[in-house]
């Protein structure tokens, strides 16, 4: 799920250093302790405790991929930087009445949004029922009138749903496995069909392989306005239909919603990390990148091709 920033979060990082960038700000931590390990239909799941944190990892051979970090003393803490950026969609959506997350993991982003926007309907969809169980057992998630977790494939959930959402967040590209059917034009078309008027799609895609270029091309083929937020190695892309938003309009909405919701990670501060993506700019997106479709989506191959050093992204 967590792509590059988390890709290096193998067991050692997860347990010994957490995120290198934020390590110095952390309170003193206790030794790591395995709370529970489970083998589910989809993952080998290990939940570690390192006081005050609980860490969700998925195992893949001897490599563990950190999926979620939960501060047990503060359920509104977003320890991993990109999960803060995942909230950027709030300053784009015309209205904020309902939010969907595809790929719950430990549920930090969706729970953060639920805590700060208690009147907004938040739905989070997670493929793995055991991950859902762990998120309830160790990560403080619980069903509340405006907070719901569904254990289902994200695309299947959307294609069977008639609901529309103002913000749809996609964070389902875990560790080494990329579900191709969540990266195709047909998938994004289904996502778009479930956007309310003026809605926005926010997603986290690794930026270090050709999969990033293909993903940008593909989402750009469905939603013409494409932007990204970058902090160190964390990328979060924002896509929407209609005319491009002006930075001053975004700033005005950000200021208003920061105040209205009392957000801990202010939207206004994220604007400095904003950049527009032009999928036609071959300096930015490889000319070789093609739109992925249900028919042709070689995601495993693309994920194995490192991006050449070009101008960012």
């Amino acid at each position: 799920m967590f792509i590059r920033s988390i890709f290096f979060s193998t067991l050692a990082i997860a347990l010994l250093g957490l995120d290198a960038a934020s390590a110095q700000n952390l309170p003193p931590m206790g030794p790591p302790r395995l709370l529970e390990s489970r083998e589910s239909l989809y993952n080998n799941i290990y939940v570690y405790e390192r006081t005050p944190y609980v860490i969700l990892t998925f195992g893949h051979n001897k490599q563990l991929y950190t999926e979620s970090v939960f501060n047990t003393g503060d359920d509104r803490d977003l320890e991993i930087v990109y999960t803060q950026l995942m909230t950027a969609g709030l300053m784009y959506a015309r209205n904020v009445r309902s939010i969907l997350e595809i790929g719950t993991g430990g549920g930090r982003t969706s729970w953060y949004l639920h805590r700060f926007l208690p009147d907004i309907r938040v739905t989070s969809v997670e493929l793995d029922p055991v991950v859902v169980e762990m998120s309830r057992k160790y990560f403080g998630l619980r069903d509340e009138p405006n907070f719901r977790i569904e254990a289902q494939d994200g695309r299947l959930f959307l294609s069977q749903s008639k609901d529309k959402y103002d913000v749809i967040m996609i964070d389902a590209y875990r560790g080494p496995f990329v579900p191709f059917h969540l990266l195709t034009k047909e998938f994004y078309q289904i996502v778009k069909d479930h956007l309310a008027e003026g809605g926005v799609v926010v997603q986290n895609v690794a930026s270090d392989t050709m999969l990033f270029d293909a993903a940008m091309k593909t989402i750009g083929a469905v939603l013409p306005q494409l932007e990204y937020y970058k902090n160190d190695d964390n990328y979060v892309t924002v896509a929407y239909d209609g005319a491009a938003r002006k930075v001053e309009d975004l700033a005005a909405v950000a200021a208003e919603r920061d105040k209205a919701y009392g957000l801990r990670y202010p939207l206004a501060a994220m604007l400095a990390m904003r950049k527009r993506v032009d999928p036609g700019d071959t300096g930015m997106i490889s000319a070789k990148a093609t739109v992925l479709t249900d028919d042709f989506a070689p995601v495993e191959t693309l994920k194995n091709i490192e991006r050449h050093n070009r101008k960012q992204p």
Partner: protein
Amino acid sequence: MTLVRSLAPAIYLIAFVSGGVLMGFEMLGSRYLFPYFGGGIGTWASLISVVLCALAIGYFAGSAIVDRDPSQRTIGAAILVAACWLALVPATADTVMQGILGQLGAGPAATLPASAALLLVPLTLLGTFSPIAVSLLTRSAHEAGRVAGRVYGVSTIGNVAGTLLTTFVLIPSIGSRNITYIFAAVLAACAALLLMTPARRQTGG
């Protein structure tokens, strides 16, 4: 005797190629099903069990055919029908999958029928090949075991080749629909080879 010998290379070639298409199409099945039913182990279990069911039915049907009319014409026709089925898949799969999703929802109650709709008919037809091929190549009872072992061995090597080629070469380079058309064309060529090779009467018995 000479007729048997001249037919043997074609039979072994087709055992290899149709074995490759069989497993290649199973791998492709995942590309047709995942967008509708999700990419979990449940979808794979459905695909694999339908493939094995198809083979079981094909083997039984093949052994029944061996008792009646085990000719190269029969297996040629079976392979040709399988080729036609594959040729129809790219244009119709989305409608069928959408229909099953709409009617039956998700889970095994939907992924099993979806796998069956895609794979059952063509793979059952391909499954009839091996027993009939063994019958055509066997001249006397004492060599039946040796022939059967060779046919199944060659066919299984074809399975391996088809799995690897489809997964690591074809899916990353051309689309699933085009791969399906290629498989249909390859099967049609196999059928043509069987139907156009001079027919022979069973010499045994």
